[in-house]
């Protein structure tokens, strides 16, 4: 079943999402990867405001390819999430509710998701041209000097993703692999 969800994410919306659900996300999401995450956490440590409101926000781990003239963005598939694991709990503590990426998360992130009622979505890695079709607008809102790694605000319509880790601690990666493993 495919569920339609809107941003910002509420506790109720998060509670309705279960590992294995296909979702279509509509609204505003923010991009960030390695260097941007380091800067976001530095800003929090320094007591400064983040370049976007973290409460209910979804961050998409992506460094898009450049936009061709007349297009909002280039190809934009997810990057591997574990590189952001060092920073993710800190962002969830200030209200981040959703993360979109690919690949397995570490225990501190999974624990923080349960504590903060947050959810982790997988987008299909490498389906970057297809995914870009759901991104209608993009603008850099911070750290422009980082190029592909700058923080962007994206307006998305029916962005396709799959719930991997829900707020109750279910993990589709573990469940899926166990189901199809052959000894």
């Amino acid at each position, binding site marked *: 079943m495919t569920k339609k969800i809107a941003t910002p994410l509420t506790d109720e919306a998060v509670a309705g999402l279960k590992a*294995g659900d296909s979702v279509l996300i509509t609204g505003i999401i923010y991009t960030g990867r390695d260097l941007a995450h380091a800067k976001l956490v530095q800003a929090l440590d320094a007591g400064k405001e983040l370049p976007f409101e973290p409460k209910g926000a979804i961050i998409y781990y992506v460094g898009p390819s450049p936009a*061709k003239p007349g297009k909002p963005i280039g*190809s934009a598939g997810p*990057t*591997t999430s574990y590189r952001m694991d060092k920073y993710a709990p800190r962002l969830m503590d200030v209200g981040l509710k959703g993360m979109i990426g*690919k*690949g397995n998360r570490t225990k501190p992130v999974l624990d923080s998701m349960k504590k903060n009622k947050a959810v982790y979505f997988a987008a299909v890695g490498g389906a970057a041209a297809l995914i870009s079709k759901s991104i209608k607008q993009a603008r850099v809102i911070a750290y422009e000097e980082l190029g592909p790694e700058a923080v962007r605000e994206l307006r998305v319509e029916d962005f396709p993703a799959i719930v991997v880790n829900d707020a109750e601690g279910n993990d589709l*990666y573990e469940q899926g692999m166990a*189901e199809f493993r052959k000894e």
Partner: protein
Amino acid sequence: MREIGFDTVKETVAGLCMDANFEIGHDVVQAFRHGLEVEESETGKAILRQLLDNVEIAKTEKMPACQDTGWAVVWVEIGSGVRVSGGELYDAINQGVAKGYTDGYLRKSIAADPLRRKNTGDNTPAIIYTDIVPGDRLKITVQPKGGGSENMSEVRMLSAADGAEGIKNFVVDRVARSKANPCPPVVVGVGIGGTFDKCAQLSKKALLREIGSVHPDPVYAEMEQELLQRINKLGIGPQGLGGRVTALAVFVEAFPCHIATLPCAVNINCHSARHKSATL
């Protein structure tokens, strides 16, 4: 001696960078279709369908199939009877990479220094491997290599006593530990023999093989088949969400070996297994 102009090499490299990123090879597309037939997971099938759609969109709209347009790994076979006129070969290649990544709106993914992390801005330098071969032709292969799958790669110095079983267990274990991270279904390149560095290079070269091709040495052909079967029993599946199709192919490159060593390298490629060649 035959001469090829600097600009010809530069333009060829620029074109190959774009083509490799816009058009996923026919062998990979065929492997996706075959995967769709054998995959048992509904989620896995849905992902393979997305990948087939993605390939089509990228090709039609001339946009990169994956946003990680990779390190430009460039393999050059230089005939002993040919030279580049009007400049140096490496300059022509690097200028071609810069042009291809700029004109093609490809992502620039290279940090000038591993600790300072400032982007070079044009995706140079290329990683260039050259071979001098007989003849007067110049063959250039551009292999854009993504970072996520590179992170799941590894070299291990096995003991000669570990033998084929040790190699197979290491390769399967490396893929098992990678889980969802390298964007499965993956292509697995395995280098066996040579030195520590040589076997890593062999594992990358192995990724240039066409999916469906059979290793000319029956010992390694059998090893490739066994490895593919074992990997596809791991249950990782497309994107690691569970399923049958974890790898599309396993390719082995072997090389003579020091009597005291058995180096083995595993270079993992995501499903965007990209490479394009031209012969001048």
